[in-house]
């Protein structure tokens, strides 16, 4: 059994860079780069099946400034191996172009059973890749999965639904996107895993290796054209207390609420 996990790397949202600056790659250091939290849920989904069924799990990273770093962490978590796809001719801001790259990567990898992805990329809220990939592959899919159970015909998957959870059955070959749920809570890297990751050889593929060019997956090929990108100026006036000892902060808040005649309590 072979599982491919497509992961993304983002700039940690804990960094001080705010608004538009956050997306300025020249201001980002390697330490700021982390695996997209949702991609970690996907890794966990695949690794649970590895534990259970002895699956081979390959992590693939296309979107990110230093995919190699993210992939070493994926191996440290327990992935069997990893593939880096890095090329300035790939425009990863468009989920459709990213889906095209994923399809060709799967073609080059060869046989596989399941594809796992995270439900969304945290920094932009982009979620379309899972649906686009499964549609391009023509494979059955379940998105926003929260739990997964192996059954005779394939998998029983519970996914997020407004007001509850929906349970469906899917065949053994397909695409699953994973949510931040108890079942998909990512494991930590192990000491042994970290050592394996250090030694691991991670092949690097380019667009040309996948038979793709910038006219197919580059910025010139996108149908999603950026018109503007700017900071949001809040109209709302907020009173946010950042300085002081905890006790002072609370006193400050209560005094301000009193001044504004906001009654705390029934």
């Amino acid at each position, binding site marked *: 059994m072979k599982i491919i996990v497509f992961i993304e790397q983002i700039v940690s949202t804990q960094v001080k860079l705010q608004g538009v600056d*956050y997306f300025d790659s020249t201001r980002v250091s390697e330490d700021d780069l982390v695996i997209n939290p949702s991609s970690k849920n996907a890794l966990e989904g695949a690794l649970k099946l590895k534990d259970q069924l002895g699956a081979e799990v390959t992590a693939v990273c296309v979107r990110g400034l230093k995919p190699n770093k993210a992939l070493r962490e994926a191996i440290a978590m327990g992935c069997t191996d990893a593939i880096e796809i890095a090329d300035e001719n790939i425009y990863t801001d468009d989920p*459709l172009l990213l889906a095209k790259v994923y399809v060709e990567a799967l073609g080059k990898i060869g046989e596989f059973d399941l594809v796992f992805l995270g439900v969304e990329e945290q920094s932009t*809220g*982009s*979620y379309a890749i899972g649906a686009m990939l499964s549609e391009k592959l023509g494979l059955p899919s379940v998105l926003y999965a929260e739990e997964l159970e192996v059954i005779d015909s394939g998998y029983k998957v519970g996914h997020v639904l407004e007001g*509850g*959870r929906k349970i469906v059955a899917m065949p053994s070959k397909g695409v699953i996107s994973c949510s931040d749920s108890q079942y998909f809570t990512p494991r930590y890297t192990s000491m042994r895993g970290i050592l394996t990751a250090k030694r691991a050889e991670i092949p690097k593929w380019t667009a040309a290796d996948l038979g793709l060019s910038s006219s197919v997956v580059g910025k010139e090929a996108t*149908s999603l054209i950026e018109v503007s990108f700017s900071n949001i100026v809040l109209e709302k006036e907020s009173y946010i207390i950042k300085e002081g000892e905890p006790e002072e902060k609370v006193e400050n808040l209560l005094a301000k609420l009193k001044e504004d005649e906001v009654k705390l*309590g*029934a």
Partner: protein
Amino acid sequence: MVKTLVFGQIREDVIEENTLGVLNKLTEISGISEIIVALFGHQIKDEWITELGKHGASRVVSVKAPELEVYLSRPYVKAMLEVIEKTEPMLVIAAGTVYGEDLIPRLAVHHGVSCAQRINDISIVGDELHFHTPVRDDQAMKVNRIEGAIKFATSRAGAFFVNENPDGGSPNVESFDVTFSEEDMLVKHIEIKKAERTVNLKDAKIIVAGGRGVGGKEQFQIIRELAEILGGEIGATRACTDVHWIEETYEIGQTGQSVSPDIYIAAGISGAPQHVSGIKAKTLIAINTDEGAAIFNFADYGIVGDLHVILPILKQKLQG
């Protein structure tokens, strides 16, 4: 003029709220010439059509089939592609629910274009449609346009208000059949497990809610204690209810309950749109260790600090 097709969603036997919000938004944009709604199901109820008309739909196109009783990607994509072919819209939009977000990117793939995701505004500039998507915890705004004859988009949940006094008329109604094969039904519906809603938070005046930052089941005690002192209710994000730190009835947000208290205290909550879309509070007070957390964008008051330190002090001061 922009002819628009909206994916009509039903939740618990009525038209889903965010879909009504999308309709309201579309009626406000001059330049939208016709609002068509696609309705799918095993049955199509007259009251749904009346409701859609009231909220601005001028035409409802329905497909009735047992395979469409519950949303499943393949049959819904197939039906929607046929509606698109018949109605020839320039914009296809769905409210950003789980189903809407599943459907729209798939339709876009079939038309060879990308899609706009989780928009909170649409504008028409010249003869172009501009889609506004907030990013980086709502600190920046990306505006995109989409090339191609048909544009596809989803709204962000809670982005558009529902018109409380809609005055639209009766829409034109048409229906047609779509046939499905076994290949379309490879993913099979088993059941929907409705979350237990034993506590109604809708009328709560004060809510103290916890998020992932609370850290565990036992740590929720301080949230409960503060709520009790304030005479309020407790609430939580889906992340907390899913890991059973707290009962699922307390989930607030897109997939939980919608609330409109006088005071909402958000402790250890990052402020993801899926949670914030369920809150319409007069006053929101946020406590979070991360100064850049999106919740501070929505907060009227806030403390940057650890809730496990701040809340006990707050409790003590309120008691004393």
